[in-house]
């Protein structure tokens, strides 16, 4: 679809990165954030890559959020573009479609899909470039129950493997903390009118409502919940709900007390490193707004690939990249220290961000998965 990089040749020290994300359709906005994150990482590490004689080339394929398109996109990246590593897909359904093809091609595939079945499939090329769902669920539920006093929770979720898994994890996480999910409400992907769902939720009068969706869709849910009279302080959303979109759509006065999950916040003292500051500045120049979860995840996945390539002395190819990527060496990222678990899943620490009366978000809670600590 498009390509950019520092060299067009396919030399032994050229690193070819294929990005297989939904460039068009409802998730296009988060794809743009994610790609900007990867490109920012490549730009920030260009000097180190040059020193090691490594040139890079990025080829972007649109999977259109559709499994069949994702498969053909992967095949094109593998056979025509001969990439050394694939970043993507985003959606779990597409990841499930692509991983068997990736295994046959022997190309490391850094997926962002969070469904547990991806890690359970036994694919040798599987790497999850973000935390599994349980991490974002525990981050939000821990704060909402312990600090927000939410005892009765309604979950509104997208009817996909991603949304269903978030729902199931939320039920478990709430139960473990003495709270209860009193109702779960599903909606089909592509829905724009949530008036009935909002009324149903309001009528339940819960202590809190958790929105488990993606992109603009979940922000629409939040907007219509507010219109139905649900207080903003009773609303929380998982990481698929991007803060930039929330701030575009929901007026500042209506955000007071709302909770969002993010992998990155430049307001957290723990993340005020020089690298993180440089990342924020570079990313903002590239994208026109501050990085949120997907921009930061793109950067971290870029760092993963760069670290792997820098560790290779000989030829950079799909085999050496797969070996290097699955070496479990913790590294310092803009999200803090990240670890690749035995299941080849990146364990990223996450934050709860809370909006104040002025509509500004600040980090209020930090969560590290127990597996990452051990």
């Amino acid at each position: 679809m498009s390509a950019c990089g520092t060299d067009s040749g396919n030399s032994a020290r050229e690193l070819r990165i294929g990005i297989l994300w939904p460039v068009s359709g409802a998730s296009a906005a988060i794809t743009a954030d994610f790609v900007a994150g990867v490109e920012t990482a490549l730009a920030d590490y260009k000097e180190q890559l040059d020193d090691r004689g490594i040139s890079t080339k990025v080829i972007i394929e649109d999977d259109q959020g559709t499994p069949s398109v994702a498969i053909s996109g992967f095949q094109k990246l593998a056979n025509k573009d001969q990439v050394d590593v694939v970043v993507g897909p985003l959606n779990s359904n597409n990841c499930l479609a692509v991983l068997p093809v990736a295994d046959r091609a022997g190309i490391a595939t850094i997926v962002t899909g969070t469904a547990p079945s991806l890690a359970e499939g036994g694919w040798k090329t599987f790497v999850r470039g973000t935390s599994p769902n349980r991490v974002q669920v525990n981050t939000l539920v821990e704060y909402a129950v312990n600090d927000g006093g939410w005892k009765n929770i309604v979950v509104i979720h997208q009817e996909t493997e991603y949304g269903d898994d978030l729902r199931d994890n939320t039920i478990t996480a709430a139960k473990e903390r003495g709270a209860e999910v009193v109702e779960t409400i599903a909606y089909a992907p592509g829905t724009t009118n949530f008036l009935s769902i909002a009324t149903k939720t309001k009528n339940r009068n819960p202590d809190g409502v958790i929105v488990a969706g993606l992109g603009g869709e979940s922000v629409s849910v939040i907007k219509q919940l507010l219109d139905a009279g649900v207080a903003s302080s009773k609303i929380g959303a998982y990481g698929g709900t991007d803060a930039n979109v929330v701030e575009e759509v929901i007026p500042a006065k209506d955000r007071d007390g709302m909770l969002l999950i993010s992998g990155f916040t430049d307001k957290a003292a723990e993340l005020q490193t020089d690298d993180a500051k440089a990342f924020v500045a570079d990313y903002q120049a590239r994208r026109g707004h501050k990085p949120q979860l997907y921009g930061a995840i793109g950067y971290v996945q870029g760092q993963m690939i760069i670290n792997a390539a820098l560790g290779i002395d000989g030829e950079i190819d799909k085999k050496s990249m797969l070996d290097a990527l699955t070496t479990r060496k913790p590294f310092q990222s803009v999200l803090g220290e990240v670890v690749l678990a035995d299941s080849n899943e990146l364990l990223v620490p996450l934050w709860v961000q809370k909006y104040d009366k002025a509509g500004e978000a600040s980090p209020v809670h930090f969560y590290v998965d127990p597996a990452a600590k051990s």
Partner: protein
Amino acid sequence: MDVLTQQLLNGATTGMTLALIALGINLIFGLFNFVNFAHGAFYVLGGYLAITAMSSLGMNYWVALVLVAICCGLLGMVLDFTIFQRILGRDPNESMILTFGLALVIEETIRLTWGPTPRNIRSPLSEERVSFLGLYLNAQLLFALIGSFVVIGLISLLIARTTFGLRVRAMTQDFEMAQLNGVRVKNLSAGVWFLGAATTGLAGIMILPAFTLETSGILPTAVMAFAVVIIGGLGSMWGSVVAGLLLGLSTSLVEAYLATGMTDITAYSLLLIALWLRPQGLAGKKVAA
């Protein structure tokens, strides 16, 4: 007020806005038997043009409302002159395939022009909430509900009481006979396309400030509006209103009392039942074989 009343209000709002979107399809499909899957583009484009008019050109919402409707109407005329008139009267499959492709082209053009990030149209009403008798409604949706009635009423009057309307009705009833009696197809076609596209663009700028604006709504909007037109009966605007309300209320009640995520199943089941029991539509007249 109880949940049922709130759900009925939600359903009525959804239904009336659907009827307004279907108005343009009704005019064009009724006249030319032309299936236009790109019709939803005028709805989405109405929203994006409003953003440009308001944030880049500094217009207020009410001026933008009029200007966007005119722009969409003119775009409809341009598409009619450049594309649609060339395939008029040909195999309906051609118009379906062509307009399906056109919808995708417009969707991607909008995405490239305005960017992929979901947007919000801030009107004077979109951030206000109306609360009465325990019922809640976004003020923009209340405006869209009332506005839909007014616009549909005005277009009905135009079709029923003017010479232009008389010609449209004549062509809807017998295309060739109307031509033989001196009705100029090209002029009338331009007028109908202007009206159809303008009212759909107007629907976009009236309704979308209450929701989130995304590029991906073109095809689903067109297909749902077609369902309204078919259930209501071709050429009948008030049939579309009844069908829109029927669809809006049914989906709202099913989502409230049976299961959520059932909007499409409910809507298209209603379409199937309508085609089975009354293929000419609720307000349509049965045509002898």
